């Protein structure tokens, strides 16, 4: 068998295996089961404020998101929800350098990252026995697209500093102190 046909059969087999892999059941157990890491995340992403006015907190969050360049996507005050997003550039100089080198040397271009959508998801809920406090939780995530507009990654933004600085800003805007949960 010459090299060409060997390659062709190989790639046909690979395609078959990939197809079969796509049919196999994926376990989603981890996604819908609470893990200690998820609780740790909650700790980082949540603060309590001494107020009974949940709506005021939501209004302030909306204003703060607007200040930081987000657009509001969805809100339901009755359930204490706010989601927002913004589109930003995701160009990474180091990645471009790798891209250019690889495409010159191997002739196989791997498109580098170009754009990203950053998302914020805020929930509020009254806490405490008499509901004298409101807990605010914010989660940030980003979706990165390459130069071919394909999604290259979707990742939660887990740096505690981001959350700290968000709550510092919120605390200032509310004139209230933020407590850890």
């Amino acid at each position, binding site marked *: 068998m010459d090299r060409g046909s060997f390659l*062709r059969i190989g790639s*046909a087999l690979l395609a078959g295996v990939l*197809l079969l892999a796509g049919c196999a059941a994926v376990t*989603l157990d981890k996604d819908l*089961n609470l893990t200690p890491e998820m609780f740790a995340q909650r700790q980082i992403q949540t603060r309590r404020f001494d107020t009974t006015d949940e709506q005021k907190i939501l209004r302030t969050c909306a204003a703060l998101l607007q200040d930081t360049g987000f657009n509001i996507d969805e809100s339901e005050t009755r359930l204490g929800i706010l989601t927002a997003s913004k589109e930003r550039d995701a160009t990474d100089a180091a990645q471009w350098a790798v891209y250019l080198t690889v495409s010159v040397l191997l002739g196989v271009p791997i498109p580098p990252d170009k754009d990203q959508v950053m998302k914020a998801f805020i929930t509020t809920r009254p806490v405490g026995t008499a509901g004298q406090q409101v807990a605010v939780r914010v989660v940030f*995530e980003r979706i990165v697209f390459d130069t071919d507009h394909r999604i290259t*990654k979707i990742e*939660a933004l887990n740096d505690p500093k981001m959350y700290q600085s968000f709550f510092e800003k919120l605390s200032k805007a509310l004139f209230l102190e933020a407590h850890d949960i």
Partner: protein
Amino acid sequence: MTSDRLKRNILLLIPLLLLVAACATTHDRLLDMDTSQVQLRSIQSRAFDTTDKEKTMRAIIATLQDLGFMLDRADYTLGVVAASKARADVMQAPGSLRVTVTVRPRGEKQLLVRANAEYMRAPVTEPKPYQNFFNSLEKAMFLEAHQVD
């Protein structure tokens, strides 16, 4: 030479045939007729001994947030919450696990919570993920989830 090429072409055809065999008709997909609807409904539903729709919906949203989902849509009047979560499997492009949860009254004293999930362009029909979800929800609700028929 001819038979050589034929052999090659047949080998190339196999994955194609596998692809076609995996295809369902549009009708099957639209109404997802392959699983028993009754069975699926029982896997995806639980009853809670409460009539507090707001508290239940807040608990659902908090649970989804705990599980790392991002909210897509929520409507109190309809009692609907839709959320999605990014997943990255080996050898696959990032896909999202999408969940829709609905809340509606069941009799005078209960609320029925139904969740349905979709992943990799197919409905999630195994019972385990739903069991996990309702276990997590039970903790947020401080109430027991009852199996319904």
